[in-house]
Protein backbone atom coordinates (compact mmCIF):
# COMPACT_ATOMS: atom_id res chain seq x y z
CA UNK A 1 0.00 0.00 0.00
CA UNK A 2 1.64 3.27 -0.96
CA UNK A 3 1.45 5.85 1.81
CA UNK A 4 4.70 7.79 1.45
CA UNK A 5 5.32 8.26 5.16
CA UNK A 6 6.06 6.19 8.25
CA UNK A 7 3.58 5.36 10.99
CA UNK A 8 6.06 6.83 13.49
CA UNK A 9 5.89 10.19 11.68
CA UNK A 10 2.10 10.12 11.68
CA UNK A 11 1.98 9.25 15.37
CA UNK A 12 4.45 12.02 16.23
CA UNK A 13 2.11 14.53 14.56
CA UNK A 14 -1.04 13.10 16.10
CA UNK A 15 0.68 13.15 19.49
CA UNK A 16 0.19 16.94 19.58
CA UNK A 17 -3.55 16.57 20.07
CA UNK A 18 -4.02 12.97 21.21
CA UNK A 19 -0.93 12.13 23.26
CA UNK A 20 -2.26 9.17 25.28
CA UNK A 21 -3.87 7.39 22.37
CA UNK A 22 -0.94 8.02 20.02
CA UNK A 23 1.41 6.53 22.63
CA UNK A 24 -0.87 3.50 23.01
CA UNK A 25 -0.89 2.91 19.23
CA UNK A 26 2.91 3.26 19.11
CA UNK A 27 3.19 0.53 21.75
CA UNK A 28 0.61 -1.76 20.13
CA UNK A 29 1.34 -1.20 16.47
CA UNK A 30 2.93 -4.63 15.80
CA UNK A 31 1.04 -6.54 18.46
CA UNK A 32 -1.10 -9.37 17.07
CA UNK A 33 -4.03 -10.27 19.35
CA UNK A 34 -5.33 -13.86 19.50
CA UNK A 35 -3.72 -14.62 16.14
CA UNK A 36 -6.07 -12.29 14.29
CA UNK A 37 -4.86 -10.58 11.12
CA UNK A 38 -3.23 -7.17 10.88
CA UNK A 39 -5.48 -4.28 9.85
CA UNK A 40 -4.93 -1.55 7.28
CA UNK A 41 -7.33 1.32 6.67
CA UNK A 42 -7.96 3.66 3.78
CA UNK A 43 -9.97 6.79 4.50
CA UNK A 44 -11.83 8.16 1.47
CA UNK A 45 -13.19 11.69 1.94
CA UNK A 46 -16.21 12.43 -0.25
CA UNK A 47 -16.28 16.13 0.62
CA UNK A 48 -13.57 18.66 0.02
CA UNK A 49 -11.43 17.18 2.75
CA UNK A 50 -10.19 20.56 4.05
CA UNK A 51 -9.97 19.20 7.60
CA UNK A 52 -7.23 16.85 6.41
CA UNK A 53 -5.07 19.48 4.70
CA UNK A 54 -2.92 20.37 7.69
CA UNK A 55 -2.28 16.70 8.53
CA UNK A 56 -1.34 15.94 4.91
CA UNK A 57 0.89 19.01 4.80
CA UNK A 58 2.75 17.95 7.94
CA UNK A 59 3.17 14.43 6.57
CA UNK A 60 5.04 15.80 3.56
CA UNK A 61 2.37 17.34 1.33
CA UNK A 62 -0.21 15.99 -1.10
CA UNK A 63 2.34 14.93 -3.70
CA UNK A 64 4.09 12.69 -1.16
CA UNK A 65 1.07 11.38 0.70
CA UNK A 66 -1.95 11.43 -1.61
CA UNK A 67 -0.83 11.69 -5.20
CA UNK A 68 1.51 8.71 -5.11
CA UNK A 69 -1.66 6.66 -4.90
CA UNK A 70 -3.93 6.87 -7.94
CA UNK A 71 -6.56 4.75 -6.21
CA UNK A 72 -9.56 6.26 -4.44
CA UNK A 73 -13.35 6.19 -4.36
CA UNK A 74 -14.61 7.82 -7.56
CA UNK A 75 -16.40 10.58 -5.62
CA UNK A 76 -13.58 11.16 -3.14
CA UNK A 77 -11.43 14.26 -3.09
CA UNK A 78 -8.73 12.38 -1.23
CA UNK A 79 -7.82 8.93 0.04
CA UNK A 80 -5.54 8.78 3.05
CA UNK A 81 -3.86 5.39 3.28
CA UNK A 82 -2.87 4.44 6.81
CA UNK A 83 0.01 2.05 7.48
CA UNK A 84 -1.22 -1.34 8.77
CA UNK A 85 -1.23 -2.13 12.48
CA UNK A 86 -1.25 -5.43 14.32
CA UNK A 87 -4.80 -5.46 15.62
CA UNK A 88 -8.27 -3.96 15.23
CA UNK A 89 -8.07 -2.07 18.54
CA UNK A 90 -4.95 -0.23 17.41
CA UNK A 91 -6.58 0.56 14.04
CA UNK A 92 -9.60 2.04 15.84
CA UNK A 93 -7.36 4.01 18.22
CA UNK A 94 -5.34 5.34 15.27
CA UNK A 95 -8.58 6.47 13.59
CA UNK A 96 -9.62 8.20 16.83
CA UNK A 97 -6.28 10.03 16.95
CA UNK A 98 -6.95 11.27 13.40
CA UNK A 99 -10.49 12.29 14.36
CA UNK A 100 -9.10 14.34 17.21
CA UNK A 101 -6.38 15.94 15.10
CA UNK A 102 -8.57 16.80 12.10
CA UNK A 103 -11.83 17.42 13.96
CA UNK A 104 -13.52 15.21 11.38
CA UNK A 105 -15.58 12.22 12.58
CA UNK A 106 -14.45 9.09 10.77
CA UNK A 107 -17.08 6.66 12.03
CA UNK A 108 -20.69 6.82 10.90
CA UNK A 109 -19.94 9.88 8.76
CA UNK A 110 -21.67 10.06 5.36
CA UNK A 111 -18.70 11.95 3.92
CA UNK A 112 -16.20 9.29 4.96
CA UNK A 113 -15.85 5.87 3.40
CA UNK A 114 -13.68 3.44 5.32
CA UNK A 115 -11.91 0.67 3.43
CA UNK A 116 -10.55 -2.14 5.55
CA UNK A 117 -7.52 -4.01 4.20
CA UNK A 118 -6.77 -7.57 5.29
CA UNK A 119 -3.68 -9.50 4.21
CA UNK A 120 -4.25 -12.49 1.90
CA UNK A 121 -6.36 -12.80 -1.20
CA UNK A 122 -9.56 -14.74 -0.59
CA UNK A 123 -11.06 -16.81 -3.38
CA UNK A 124 -14.46 -15.91 -4.86
CA UNK A 125 -16.55 -17.98 -2.44
CA UNK A 126 -14.77 -16.79 0.67
CA UNK A 127 -14.94 -13.19 -0.56
CA UNK A 128 -18.71 -13.66 -0.81
CA UNK A 129 -18.84 -14.93 2.79
CA UNK A 130 -16.71 -12.00 3.95
CA UNK A 131 -18.99 -9.44 2.28
CA UNK A 132 -22.23 -11.11 3.38
CA UNK A 133 -20.95 -11.61 6.93
CA UNK A 134 -19.89 -7.96 7.12
CA UNK A 135 -23.26 -6.77 5.81
CA UNK A 136 -25.36 -8.89 8.16
CA UNK A 137 -23.19 -8.19 11.20
CA UNK A 138 -22.87 -4.44 10.80
CA UNK A 139 -24.58 -2.05 13.20
CA UNK A 140 -25.90 -0.21 10.14
CA UNK A 141 -28.00 -1.71 7.36
CA UNK A 142 -27.31 0.06 4.08
CA UNK A 143 -28.91 0.31 0.68
CA UNK A 144 -26.48 0.72 -2.18
CA UNK A 145 -26.49 2.20 -5.63
CA UNK A 146 -23.99 0.54 -7.94
CA UNK A 147 -22.15 3.86 -8.28
CA UNK A 148 -21.44 3.80 -4.52
CA UNK A 149 -18.83 1.14 -5.21
CA UNK A 150 -17.13 2.87 -8.13
CA UNK A 151 -13.43 3.53 -7.61
CA UNK A 152 -10.69 4.89 -9.85
CA UNK A 153 -9.66 1.31 -10.66
CA UNK A 154 -13.15 -0.04 -11.41
CA UNK A 155 -12.62 0.32 -15.16
CA UNK A 156 -8.92 0.96 -15.31
CA UNK A 157 -7.50 -1.27 -18.08
CA UNK A 158 -4.67 -2.48 -15.87
CA UNK A 159 -6.65 -3.41 -12.76
CA UNK A 160 -10.36 -3.72 -13.67
CA UNK A 161 -11.56 -4.28 -10.14
CA UNK A 162 -15.20 -3.59 -11.06
CA UNK A 163 -17.77 -2.20 -8.62
CA UNK A 164 -17.66 -4.55 -5.66
CA UNK A 165 -17.71 -4.58 -1.89
CA UNK A 166 -14.57 -6.74 -1.88
CA UNK A 167 -11.60 -5.78 -4.02
CA UNK A 168 -8.08 -7.11 -4.28
CA UNK A 169 -4.94 -5.04 -3.84
CA UNK A 170 -3.10 -3.62 -6.80
CA UNK A 171 0.24 -5.21 -5.95
CA UNK A 172 3.07 -2.97 -4.76
CA UNK A 173 4.28 -2.52 -1.19
CA UNK A 174 3.13 -5.06 1.35
CA UNK A 175 4.06 -5.12 5.04
CA UNK A 176 4.68 -8.73 6.05
CA UNK A 177 6.03 -7.86 9.46
CA UNK A 178 3.15 -9.20 11.54
CA UNK A 179 2.98 -12.50 13.42
CA UNK A 180 1.16 -15.38 11.77
CA UNK A 181 -0.25 -18.16 13.89
CA UNK A 182 0.40 -21.55 12.41
CA UNK A 183 0.14 -25.16 13.58
CA UNK A 184 3.24 -27.26 14.21
CA UNK A 185 3.85 -30.61 12.48
CA UNK A 186 1.75 -32.57 14.99
CA UNK A 187 -1.16 -30.24 14.27
CA UNK A 188 -1.73 -29.56 17.96
CA UNK A 189 0.81 -26.97 18.97
CA UNK A 190 0.73 -23.36 18.08
CA UNK A 191 3.65 -22.06 16.09
CA UNK A 192 4.02 -18.32 15.90
CA UNK A 193 5.83 -17.24 12.75
CA UNK A 194 7.39 -13.79 12.76
CA UNK A 195 5.84 -12.74 9.48
CA UNK A 196 2.85 -13.34 7.26
CA UNK A 197 3.16 -16.39 5.00
CA UNK A 198 2.38 -14.51 1.77
CA UNK A 199 4.63 -11.99 0.07
CA UNK A 200 1.76 -9.78 -0.98
CA UNK A 201 -1.96 -9.81 -1.68
CA UNK A 202 -4.90 -8.33 0.20
CA UNK A 203 -8.67 -8.57 0.31
CA UNK A 204 -10.16 -5.16 0.99
CA UNK A 205 -13.71 -4.35 1.96
CA UNK A 206 -15.43 -1.06 1.20
CA UNK A 207 -17.55 -0.58 4.29
CA UNK A 208 -19.11 2.73 3.25
CA UNK A 209 -19.61 4.89 6.33
CA UNK A 210 -18.20 2.26 8.63
CA UNK A 211 -18.07 1.86 12.39
CA UNK A 212 -15.76 0.53 15.06
CA UNK A 213 -17.84 -2.65 15.16
CA UNK A 214 -17.37 -3.09 11.39
CA UNK A 215 -13.59 -3.01 11.86
CA UNK A 216 -13.75 -5.63 14.61
CA UNK A 217 -16.18 -7.85 12.69
CA UNK A 218 -14.31 -7.73 9.38
CA UNK A 219 -11.04 -8.46 11.17
CA UNK A 220 -12.57 -11.57 12.76
CA UNK A 221 -14.27 -12.76 9.55
CA UNK A 222 -11.20 -12.14 7.38
CA UNK A 223 -9.00 -14.00 9.88
CA UNK A 224 -11.24 -17.08 9.87
CA UNK A 225 -11.50 -17.12 6.07
CA UNK A 226 -7.83 -16.35 5.34
CA UNK A 227 -6.71 -19.02 7.84
CA UNK A 228 -9.09 -21.52 6.21
CA UNK A 229 -7.55 -20.73 2.84
CA UNK A 230 -3.87 -20.68 3.89
CA UNK A 231 -4.14 -23.49 6.47
CA UNK A 232 -3.24 -21.26 9.40
CA UNK A 233 -3.83 -21.91 13.08
CA UNK A 234 -7.50 -20.94 12.84
CA UNK A 235 -8.16 -23.03 9.72
CA UNK A 236 -10.41 -25.59 11.43
CA UNK A 237 -12.42 -22.86 13.09
CA UNK A 238 -12.52 -21.04 9.75
CA UNK A 239 -13.87 -24.10 7.93
CA UNK A 240 -16.48 -24.57 10.64
CA UNK A 241 -17.47 -20.94 10.24
CA UNK A 242 -17.84 -21.41 6.48
CA UNK A 243 -20.18 -24.33 7.10
CA UNK A 244 -22.18 -22.33 9.63
CA UNK A 245 -22.50 -19.42 7.21
CA UNK A 246 -23.59 -21.75 4.44
CA UNK A 247 -26.25 -23.30 6.72
CA UNK A 248 -27.44 -19.86 7.76
CA UNK A 249 -27.85 -18.81 4.12
CA UNK A 250 -29.51 -22.16 3.32
CA UNK A 251 -32.08 -21.69 6.07
CA UNK A 252 -33.03 -18.33 4.60
CA UNK A 253 -33.02 -19.59 1.00
CA UNK A 254 -30.11 -17.28 0.19
CA UNK A 255 -27.46 -19.94 -0.48
CA UNK A 256 -27.34 -19.05 -4.17
CA UNK A 257 -25.95 -15.61 -3.31
CA UNK A 258 -22.43 -16.94 -2.77
CA UNK A 259 -22.24 -17.98 -6.42
CA UNK A 260 -22.40 -14.36 -7.55
CA UNK A 261 -19.07 -12.65 -8.36
CA UNK A 262 -18.57 -10.74 -5.07
CA UNK A 263 -14.95 -10.05 -6.01
CA UNK A 264 -13.31 -9.71 -9.36
CA UNK A 265 -10.69 -12.44 -9.25
CA UNK A 266 -9.23 -12.53 -12.76
CA UNK A 267 -8.35 -10.13 -15.49
CA UNK A 268 -9.92 -12.07 -18.34
CA UNK A 269 -13.34 -12.79 -16.86
CA UNK A 270 -16.37 -10.76 -17.83
CA UNK A 271 -17.14 -7.84 -15.61
CA UNK A 272 -20.17 -9.28 -13.74
CA UNK A 273 -20.93 -6.01 -11.93
CA UNK A 274 -24.67 -6.39 -12.52
CA UNK A 275 -24.65 -10.03 -11.46
CA UNK A 276 -22.95 -9.08 -8.22
CA UNK A 277 -25.24 -6.12 -7.70
CA UNK A 278 -28.37 -8.26 -8.14
CA UNK A 279 -27.12 -10.60 -5.42
CA UNK A 280 -26.37 -7.64 -3.15
CA UNK A 281 -29.81 -6.16 -3.80
CA UNK A 282 -31.46 -9.47 -2.92
CA UNK A 283 -29.57 -9.59 0.36
CA UNK A 284 -30.40 -5.94 1.12
CA UNK A 285 -34.12 -6.43 0.37
CA UNK A 286 -34.27 -9.53 2.57
CA UNK A 287 -32.52 -7.82 5.44
CA UNK A 288 -34.59 -4.62 5.33
CA UNK A 289 -37.77 -6.72 5.48
CA UNK A 290 -36.26 -8.71 8.31
CA UNK A 291 -35.42 -5.56 10.26
CA UNK A 292 -39.10 -4.50 10.15
CA UNK A 293 -40.09 -7.94 11.45
CA UNK A 294 -37.52 -7.75 14.27
CA UNK A 295 -38.78 -4.31 15.34
CA UNK A 296 -42.41 -5.51 15.35
CA UNK A 297 -41.43 -8.63 17.24
CA UNK A 298 -39.58 -6.68 19.90
CA UNK A 299 -42.56 -4.38 20.39
CA UNK A 300 -44.89 -7.32 21.08
CA UNK A 301 -42.28 -9.26 22.96
CA UNK A 302 -43.48 -8.23 26.39
CA UNK A 303 -47.20 -8.27 25.72
CA UNK A 304 -47.62 -11.43 23.61
CA UNK A 305 -44.30 -13.25 23.82
CA UNK A 306 -46.05 -16.57 24.63
CA UNK A 307 -47.73 -16.54 21.19
CA UNK A 308 -44.42 -16.71 19.31
CA UNK A 309 -43.87 -20.35 18.33
CA UNK A 310 -40.78 -21.84 19.92
CA UNK A 311 -39.63 -23.20 16.56
CA UNK A 312 -39.74 -19.90 14.69
CA UNK A 313 -36.42 -18.70 13.28
CA UNK A 314 -34.85 -15.90 15.27
CA UNK A 315 -34.13 -14.24 11.94
CA UNK A 316 -31.00 -13.85 9.87
CA UNK A 317 -29.78 -10.74 11.71
CA UNK A 318 -30.00 -12.34 15.15
CA UNK A 319 -28.39 -15.52 13.81
CA UNK A 320 -25.46 -13.55 12.37
CA UNK A 321 -24.92 -11.77 15.68
CA UNK A 322 -24.88 -15.17 17.42
CA UNK A 323 -22.35 -16.51 14.91
CA UNK A 324 -20.02 -13.55 15.39
CA UNK A 325 -20.32 -13.86 19.15
CA UNK A 326 -19.70 -17.61 19.04
CA UNK A 327 -16.53 -17.32 16.94
CA UNK A 328 -15.17 -14.29 18.79
CA UNK A 329 -15.58 -16.15 22.08
CA UNK A 330 -14.02 -19.30 20.65
CA UNK A 331 -10.97 -17.48 19.25
CA UNK A 332 -10.34 -15.80 22.61
CA UNK A 333 -10.97 -19.00 24.57
CA UNK A 334 -8.63 -21.14 22.46
CA UNK A 335 -5.85 -18.57 22.36
CA UNK A 336 -5.99 -18.18 26.17
CA UNK A 337 -5.90 -21.95 26.55
CA UNK A 338 -2.60 -21.93 24.72
CA UNK A 339 -1.29 -19.02 26.72
CA UNK A 340 -1.98 -21.13 29.82
CA UNK A 341 -0.06 -24.08 28.39
CA UNK A 342 -2.95 -26.26 27.17
CA UNK A 343 -3.78 -27.67 23.73
CA UNK A 344 -6.86 -27.01 21.62
Amino acid at each position, binding site marked *: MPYGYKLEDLLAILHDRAPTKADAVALDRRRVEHGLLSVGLKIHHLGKGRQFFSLVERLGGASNVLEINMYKHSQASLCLVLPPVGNARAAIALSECIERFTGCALFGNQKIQIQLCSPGRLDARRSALLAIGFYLGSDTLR*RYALGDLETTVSRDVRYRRGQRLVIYDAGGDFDRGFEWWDRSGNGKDRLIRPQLPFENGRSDLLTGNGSRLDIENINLLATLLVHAKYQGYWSKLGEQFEEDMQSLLDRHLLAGLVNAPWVRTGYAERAGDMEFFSALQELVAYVFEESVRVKKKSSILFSRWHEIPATSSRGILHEM*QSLLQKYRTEVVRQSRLHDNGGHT
Partner: protein
Amino acid sequence: MIRAHQPGSQPIDIPEVIPNPTVVPKQEPIPKEPAPKEPVKVPEKVSHERQHR
Protein backbone atom coordinates in the same frame (compact mmCIF):
# COMPACT_ATOMS: atom_id res chain seq x y z
CA MET B 1 -33.19 9.15 0.86
CA ILE B 2 -34.23 7.27 -2.27
CA ARG B 3 -37.65 8.38 -3.54
CA ALA B 4 -39.70 5.65 -5.16
CA HIS B 5 -42.38 7.20 -7.36
CA GLN B 6 -45.28 5.45 -9.01
CA PRO B 7 -47.76 7.34 -11.18
CA GLY B 8 -50.90 8.12 -9.24
CA SER B 9 -49.52 7.20 -5.84
CA GLN B 10 -47.88 9.07 -3.02
CA PRO B 11 -44.09 9.01 -3.31
CA ILE B 12 -42.57 6.91 -0.53
CA ASP B 13 -39.28 7.59 1.15
CA ILE B 14 -36.97 4.62 1.54
CA PRO B 15 -34.12 5.28 3.95
CA GLU B 16 -30.66 4.37 2.64
CA VAL B 17 -29.31 3.53 6.05
CA ILE B 18 -31.05 2.16 9.14
CA PRO B 19 -29.65 0.84 12.41
CA ASN B 20 -29.41 -2.92 12.71
CA PRO B 21 -32.08 -3.69 15.35
CA THR B 22 -30.18 -6.76 16.60
CA VAL B 23 -27.01 -4.87 17.51
CA VAL B 24 -26.88 -3.48 21.01
CA PRO B 25 -25.04 -0.16 20.81
CA LYS B 26 -21.80 -0.19 22.75
CA GLN B 27 -21.22 2.48 25.32
CA GLU B 28 -18.57 4.77 23.86
CA PRO B 29 -15.49 4.81 26.06
CA ILE B 30 -14.89 8.03 27.91
CA PRO B 31 -11.98 9.89 26.27
CA LYS B 32 -8.83 9.23 28.23
CA GLU B 33 -6.78 12.14 26.95
CA PRO B 34 -5.58 14.32 29.82
CA ALA B 35 -7.66 17.41 30.40
CA PRO B 36 -5.95 20.70 29.48
CA LYS B 37 -3.78 21.96 32.27
CA GLU B 38 -5.36 24.51 34.52
CA PRO B 39 -3.48 27.79 34.85
CA VAL B 40 -1.09 27.80 37.77
CA LYS B 41 -2.45 29.83 40.64
CA VAL B 42 -0.02 32.40 41.88
CA PRO B 43 -0.53 33.09 45.56
CA GLU B 44 -1.53 36.61 46.33
CA LYS B 45 1.13 38.77 47.74
CA VAL B 46 0.60 39.39 51.38
CA SER B 47 2.16 42.52 52.67
CA HIS B 48 4.46 42.36 55.66
CA GLU B 49 2.28 44.77 57.45
CA ARG B 50 -0.82 42.50 57.16
CA GLN B 51 1.13 39.45 58.23
CA HIS B 52 2.11 41.02 61.49
CA ARG B 53 -1.40 42.10 62.40
